[in-house]
């Protein structure tokens, strides 16, 4: 750090008046980012306070939000999508992250053979697009092709097969598990990195005290990787409350059957663009986007100000 200062002091007097190069270096990124990302976000939030009144766009305060939360037609869709989205997130937290942590814990054991191969192979689904993942699973779970029933027959579970994606009670769970299958790679990689970062001395000290295997994982490693689990959780949260592509691919924009897989992303798409006999509505679209923004902001803020702060003491 002090070297940088010295370098600055040495060179700066010549160009002190205005260091234009700083502005030149920052300008392109700043302009594109501001114009395409920040301003539209602000504009979307602003639009959520406006609506068409007698053919003209007028300021309506929080009336759009009132409509969204209370109007009999729209609010049913909204609460349904929000509830589904929460379930979608909970399934990810309960399945994706524990499985990812378990795989990472196994991969990071010293002297494990083929670790690089397992790691690369398990990460493959994460690289595929939702379109590919969605259709592959649609085909596999399809009763017409019969891959899933015949596989389940191998382990004597054929009776348990049902067209899960087509039934309202199971479709959301099925879609969530497809998404989990795709994204296990991310917690796996991040936790794996965190586990490798634990200093050898800590583990050696634990082994000297006779703490090995399972108890070493629970008592030593898990507390040390909590910060990474926190990051993984917040990434999952943001990703889930912003999800759209997989549901759109597997179940279409109507997020069927009967809206049972509708989440905020698909609701935003339908509301904003309209679908079939429903007209697109820019203001309500902006309102839903604003609600999503607030949900994500609340999650990220909770992480940054509450969870991360408590965890810092575990870091080295």
């Amino acid at each position, binding site marked *: 750090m002090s070297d940088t200062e010295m370098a600055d002091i040495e060179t700066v007097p010549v160009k002190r008046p205005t260091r234009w190069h700083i502005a030149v270096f920052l300008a392109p990124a700043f302009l594109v980012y501001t114009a395409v990302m920040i301003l539209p976000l602000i504009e979307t939030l602003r639009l959520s306070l406006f609506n068409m009144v007698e053919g003209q766009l007028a300021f309506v305060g929080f009336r759009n939000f009132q409509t969204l939360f209370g109007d009999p037609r729209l609010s049913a869709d909204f609460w349904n999508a929000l509830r589904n989205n929460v379930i979608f997130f909970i399934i990810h937290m309960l399945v994706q992250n524990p499985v990812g942590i378990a795989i990472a814990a196994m991969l990071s054991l010293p002297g494990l053979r083929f670790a690089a191969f397992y790691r690369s192979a398990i990460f493959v689904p994460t690289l595929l*697009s939702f379109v590919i993942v969605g259709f592959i699973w649609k085909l596999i779970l399809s009763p017409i092709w019969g891959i899933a029933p015949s596989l389940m027959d191998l382990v004597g579970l054929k009776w348990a097969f049902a067209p899960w994606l087509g039934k309202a009670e199971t479709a959301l769970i099925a879609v969530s598990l497809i998404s989990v299958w795709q994204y296990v790679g991310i917690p796996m990689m991040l936790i794996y990195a965190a586990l490798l970062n634990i200093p050898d001395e800590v583990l050696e000290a634990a082994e000297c005290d006779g703490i090995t295997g399972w108890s070493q994982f629970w008592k030593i490693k898990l507390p040390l990787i909590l910060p990474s689990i926190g990051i993984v959780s917040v990434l999952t949260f943001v990703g889930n409350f912003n999800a759209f592509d997989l549901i759109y691919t597997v179940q279409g924009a109507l997020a069927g059957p009967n809206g049972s897989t509708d989440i905020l992303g698909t609701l935003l798409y339908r509301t904003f663009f309209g679908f079939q006999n429903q007209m697109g509505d820019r203001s309500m679209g902006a309102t839903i986007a604003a609600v999503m923004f607030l949900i994500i902001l609340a999650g990220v803020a909770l992480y940054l100000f509450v969870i991360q702060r408590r965890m810092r003491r575990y870091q080295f």
Partner: protein
Amino acid sequence: MSKARSAPVRAAFIHLALIAYTLVALFPVFLTLVNSFKSRSAIFSQPMALPTPSTFSLIGYQTVLNQGNFIGYFQNSLIVTVVSIALVLLFGAMAAFALSEYRFRGNTLMGLYLALGIMIPIRLGTVAILQGMVAAGLVNTLTSLILVYTAQGLPLAIFILSEFMRTVSDDLKSAGRIDGLSEYAIFFRLVLPLVRPAMATVAVFTMIPIWNDLWFPLILAPGEATKTVTLGAQMFIGQFVTNWNAVLSALSLAILPVMVLYVIFSRQLIRGITSGAVK
């Protein structure tokens, strides 16, 4: 110790678990690739079997190549991805250099401002982005996608690159300054070559979500001339949903480029994610 006795058993269980999960991860991909080379009847009668001379068929690929405009879609995806990555790397590296190299008023604030986008998804601004693109006459152009993806990729790129740029030796830069190099020359000739590994990591990170994105192509550029592979495959499969040969072949074609890139860059990607973890 007891550890020595149970070690082989434990190792066997761990391998078993990992092999099982690897199968779960790869099986669907394998199934798609294998069946895309089979005739329609074989797809249904022996879905798990490898294609044999009697069941081998390229009918699916023929349908895809004749009916769909996949080569055009590939071109679009390639242009959008490559140009966006190039802009993200150039603009991101420049901003990261300014933030990590110079002390100026508002440095921290600027850093925080540019980092906002790591957590807040650009998708939430879609309503206004579409409005803006309509106003600028950019709807159904690849430019609109490139702009959006550049903005989307910049925050993480700046964050990662500025971490790396802090590790570039100050002596080197000072030596450059004494030799009379301008700040631009120091950036382009001294610093950029040194952070090349980090640039590769950022490129891979940036590439995956761009190549796979469905939302923005669907909204900003759904026209036939500007469809990307992801959108093209989505629409094509929607139309040919009962033609299983064509669907499986289209899926395989969409998987192919990602897998090729993964094989080439997997070390780079994994090193990037687990950076600093190399003991």
